[in-house]
Each structure stands twice: as C-alpha cells, then as structure tokens.
C-alpha cells in the first residue's frame, strides 16, 4: 500500500542520513527516482523551492512528495516517517547519548562517515548535473552561479533568483 511505502521510504531516509541538510540529498534522490515518485527535474525544483521557503530541505521534500503521490495523508505519512527514527533514537537513548557521543568508537565511525558523505554528494552533483544542466546556456548559468556564490558571497536565494532570470533571458533572447 502506497501510504506504508511512503512511510517506510522516508523512515529509511531519516535513519540513514548523517549530517543533515545537503547530506540528505543523495539518499532522497536515489529513493525518489527509484520509486518513480519524482523526476530528477522535479527533485531539483523542490531543492530550489526549499532554499527559498523556510524550513528544512528534507521536510519540504517529504511534504511535497507525500502530497504528489497520495494527497494530504501522503504528506502526513512521509513526514512522520522522516521524523520517526529520530523520535525513537532520542526518546529511548537520550540519556546514553551524552555519554556515547564522545566515545572513540563513535568518533571513529564518524571519521569514516564524514568523508563518505562528501563522496555521496559529489556523485549526486555529477548524476544530477548530467540530467539538468542542458546545453551551453546551462553551463554558462552554472559558472555564473558558482562565481556569485563563491566569490561574490551572494546568499543562495539571490543566486537562485538571478539564475532563474538568466534562464528566461537565454531562452527568449
């Protein structure tokens, strides 16, 4: 049943994402495309919308996908699925967490996981980039966006707005 599948999929995303924010993107992308719930274009659009609206990217994505697949109840199931692993971990082991977060074995696991997440993100950049950066226009807009972000230090919302305007200009001029 679709509601249970939504719940389980977002439960998996919540349980196996380490580092929050953009670290979630590779896993969400993998799951959404594998289930056929979103195209890569739609997924990237949701990331853009998430940047421009308040709140966390993962919650926004869960809300949108749940709605698209199964309406309001879909949203409830996917969002609850995303939250459930944290709820279980925090309420059951809250007292142990203070003690264990400094344990060398946990620190050791993190020393492996952190660079691994960087690898996941870079693969996502390649696989998403191949699909959504179209033609010479797309590449030029990408380079301008990188300069605005890295050199001009413009806020991501500004970078998204300017890139959108450039997209329209390049298409119609």
């Amino acid at each position, binding site marked *: 049943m679709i509601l249970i599948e939504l719940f389980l999929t977002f439960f998996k995303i919540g349980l196996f994402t380490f580092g929050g*924010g953009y670290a979630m993107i590779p896993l969400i992308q993998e799951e959404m495309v594998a289930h056929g719930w979103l195209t890569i*274009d739609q997924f990237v659009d949701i990331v853009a919308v998430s940047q421009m609206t308040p709140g*966390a990217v993962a919650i926004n994505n869960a809300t949108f996908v749940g709605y698209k697949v199964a309406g309001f109840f879909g949203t409830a199931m996917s969002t609850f699925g995303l939250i459930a692993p944290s709820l279980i971990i925090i309420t059951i082991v809250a007292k142990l967490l203070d003690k264990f977060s400094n344990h060398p074995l946990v620190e050791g696991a993190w020393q492996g996981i952190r660079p691994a997440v*960087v690898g996941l993100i870079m693969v996502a950049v390649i696989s998403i980039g191949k699909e959504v950066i179209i033609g010479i226009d797309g590449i030029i807009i990408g380079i301008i966006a990188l300069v605005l972000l890295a050199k001009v230090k413009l806020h991501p919302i500004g970078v998204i707005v300017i890139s959108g305007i450039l997209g329209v200009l390049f298409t119609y001029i």
Partner: protein
Amino acid sequence: MKQIKLRELFSTFMRIGGFTFGGGYAMIPLIEKELVEQKGLLTEEEFIDIIAVVQGIPGVIAVNSSLFIGYKLRGILGALTSVLAISLPSILIILSIAQLLLNLQGNQWVEALFKGVRSAVVVLIFWAGYKMSKKAIVNYSSLIYTLGVVLGILVFKLHPIVLIGFAGIIGMITSITKTKEYNDDTD
C-alpha cells in the same frame, strides 16, 4: 529551573521553523537566542552539548534538535510538541504551493525559469559538498573513503546506505587502537 508551558514551547519552535531559510543549520543560532539567551531554559554548555549530540545521530538537524530540546524540557510530550511546531510552517507552505507547482509544469516561461534555477541548484549542492570536504577530508585516509564511495556508486553500483555502513564500520575498526587507550585511561 522553571518549566516551560507546552503552549510556549510550541509557539517558540513554530517561530523558529517559520522564519529560518536554508534548513537546520540556519536554525541553530535562532534556537540559541530564544531558549538560552531570552528564556534562560538551557545553559550555554547544555546547548553546546545538545548541538553536538544532534549532529552525531542520523536524521534531519531541525527535527533532531527540536525533539531533543523538547524532550529535555518537557519529556515525550515536549518532544512531540516541539517537532510538530518546527515542521508545521514548512508543511503548510509546501502544501499550499504544491498544487501550484504541479499545475505550472509545462508552462514555457516557468520551464525557462527553472532551467536556469536547476543549474544553480547543482552548483549549490556542489558548494555544500566542497565546504563539507574541508572539515571531513583531513588526511589521505579520509580521502580514500571519499574516493571509495565515488567508485562504489559509479563503478560497482552499490546503494548509498551500504557504503555509509561500510565507512562507519571501517572507521570504527581503524579506531580500535585508540579505543583501547581510552578504556585504559578510564579504568
């Protein structure tokens, strides 16, 4: 220490969820301002410990921090109240624009706009990964994890979860010598 009312907990986290752009990490300074500086419900040390813990467990940063702080202040009800409050603004906003987004698909102007936006999003993701790499890739052995994941996915088609699991286990194994020292120290 004085106890916060659930209603106040709800309105505090709803404000934080509704006014931070850029996701969980952007919420951390706001949570600190509201709960540590203004309301005095947590000390600075408690807050720093909480942030360290919520980043060390899986899940969404905003969800983890609201759950953990809510739980510390008012138990399980506090945890549920806080997480509902921090997620509610984004759920309501996305629900109200979801249909609009779906309807606009195929509109030529919107397609042109999003064509530009999509290039920018790839750059944003790349930049987030680049900034993360400066803290995550500290020596040659951490670089091996990164390259291992890239090869694992592109060449061996392994699932991201499998690779994260591997990385965590190998990281633990290589830290066993340090763990022995730690145990000797504490004994």
